[in-house]
């Protein structure tokens, strides 16, 4: 910014206003409408900075009463705040639930997303590829509340027998332990819905990276007699590794902040529990805010905003890490 100051100011100084001066000044020095427009555009850019700063500042400012309050005050003022715990003790299980939901959904979504991306970039016939990609993008267009409705009323009853089966035969794995919920409104169902929701974003970025694989690498592999899968394994995947990682992290960021699907499907609980198939075990930050906010009192709102601040920081960290990985690859244009 500072480097451009002399350049724009420089030529205008020595020249006196007049017709010849006008001609000389045209070019870099902006006057009148141009100057106003330049400042307007720059102002909009700076506004982005301010908005992001404002989000952080206002959240801290509103959460401050809860951050500084005594734990006993909080549990006195808020009906749903557990006794004998600090704010950290309250947020802890929520953060755990949020991370668990996002991690499981990511585990489900990433392999499928890579498969779809490979399908549209290397396996599907050329003519079909873009149309099929568009169909996958449609998954991203569906509002989250519709996903919630579908997950709660349609998917839960369908997958419940599957969870029952997993609980009976694989119950010795901690994730599938506990009493399997008869309604299917459990973390595992939530993770499946979240996986469907983050599938398009991971697929879109993976596809973009796969398509950027140097053609010569692929042809060299083919010339050595590699099968199509070996081309993918030897040329495409190594080239795309960091792209896949950042795509997964962007998907993770999306899954962390998802509210409605969790709110409408999960039967919540506040435990540090890995049991994905049992009811009343976990809750996520976002869903908890949406559930409690409308009826919360002053202190309750402050506490909820404090949990929102924790969510903001987590997603910010995840997104920044993902973007940093993307930025390291210079030739990657950054699909989003």
């Amino acid at each position: 910014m500072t480097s451009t100051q002399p350049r724009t100011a420089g030529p205008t100084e020595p020249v006196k206003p007049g017709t010849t001066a006008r001609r000389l000044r045209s070019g870099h020095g902006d006057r009148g409408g141009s100057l106003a427009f330049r400042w307007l555009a720059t102002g909009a850019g700076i506004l982005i900075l301010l908005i992001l700063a404002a989000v952080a500042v206002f959240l801290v400012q509103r959460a401050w009463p809860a951050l500084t309050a005594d734990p006993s005050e909080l549990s006195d003022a808020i009906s749903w705040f557990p006794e004998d715990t600090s704010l950290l003790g309250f947020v802890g299980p929520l953060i755990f639930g949020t991370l668990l939901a996002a991690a499981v959904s990511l585990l489900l979504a990433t392999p499928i997303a890579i498969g779809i991306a490979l399908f549209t970039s290397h396996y599907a016939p050329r003519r079909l590829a873009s149309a099929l990609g568009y169909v996958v993008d449609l998954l991203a267009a569906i509002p989250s509340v519709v996903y919630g409705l579908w997950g709660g009323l349609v998917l839960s009853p369908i997958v419940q027998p599957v969870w029952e089966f997993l609980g009976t035969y694989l119950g010795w794995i901690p994730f599938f332990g506990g009493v399997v919920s008869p309604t299917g409104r459990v973390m595992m169902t939530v993770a499946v819905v979240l996986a469907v929701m983050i599938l398009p974003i991971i697929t879109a970025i993976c596809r973009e990276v796969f398509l950027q694989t140097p053609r010569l690498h692929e042809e060299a592999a083919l010339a050595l007699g590699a099968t199509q899968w070996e081309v993918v394994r030897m040329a495409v995947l190594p080239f795309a590794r960091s792209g896949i990682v950042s795509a997964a992290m962007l998907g993770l960021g999306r899954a962390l902040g998802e509210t409605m699907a969790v709110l409408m499907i999960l039967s919540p609980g506040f435990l540090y529990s890995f049991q994905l198939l049992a009811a009343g075990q976990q809750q996520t930050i976002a869903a908890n805010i949406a559930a409690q906010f409308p009826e919360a009192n002053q202190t309750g709102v402050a506490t909820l905003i404090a949990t929102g601040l924790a969510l903001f920081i987590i997603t910010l960290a995840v997104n920044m890490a993902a973007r940093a990985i993307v930025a390291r690859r210079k030739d990657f244009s950054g699909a989003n």
Partner: protein
Amino acid sequence: MTTTPTSTTPTAAGTSLREALQATDRRRRRTDLTMRVLIIAAFVLAMIPLLSLTWTVVSKGIGRLDSYFLLHSMRGVFGGMDAGGIYHAIIGTLEITLFAALISVPIGLLAAIYLVEYGNGKALARLVTFLVDVMTGIPSIVAGLFAYALFALILGPGAKFGAIGSVALSVLMIPVVIRSSEEMLRLVPNELREASLALGVPRWLTIIKVVLRTSVAGLTTGVMLAIARVIGETAPLLLTVGVVDSINFNLFEGRMMTLPVYVYRQYAQGLVPCTDGDASCIPDINLQRAWAAALTLFLIVMVLNLIGRLVTRLFAPKIR
């Protein structure tokens, strides 16, 4: 490697060599086939939820979706009454989303112009690009909390009206508008800018009359897709705009209903307890309304997406 005999002597170099090479390693070919099947299966697997969701939303929602449902509010509707509609929610969704677009489109467009036309290589531009990326990842509920906190500071806590929801939505919408507009503005060939500047047209007129006019189709698409993205947001509106059963046209006073929140609320109310023999009471009336409203929302989003894509296809200038 498996020990398949490779002693087939190639008589003529063409096809028989090929056969010989292909016969060498069954295991590799099996892996190739397996992976091909798995990759196609992944795609088919992803289609299942899309088809299931579309089918259920359409089949369950179509029954109640009629002109009565679209033109009546929920005022005075209680229990299992066979009445009630989404008129108030449609009004709320349209007003709040349009106001959000009114805030985000100028800011987003100007910021994109800054990044493309003025920013190149400057530290501020790089910072803004990075922050836009970060902003894309803000969870919608945090945007809602931000808008609530902002207005709580100005008007005191507890304020709930439509414009707060618009502010929350524009926090989500601005980065989307910037990203898509930036991409579109970068597609405008530099020769056009240079030609215009060479004719003595000032920079700002060049941008408005040449750059923006060339990319107007792409910009429209970007805005449409951004609107389609935020029109289905539920959580921020639940926090900032609240819930109401009657019609409210005023963005700046009183709670408003919006379509996504309506769907959630009807779903949350669940089944109605009916007394036996009461023919006018429908137990699952709330869920029926939820599905019908979800279908309306689904159709709005799909139409916006479709129009957005068509605009680019039909009106894009032929650059190449």
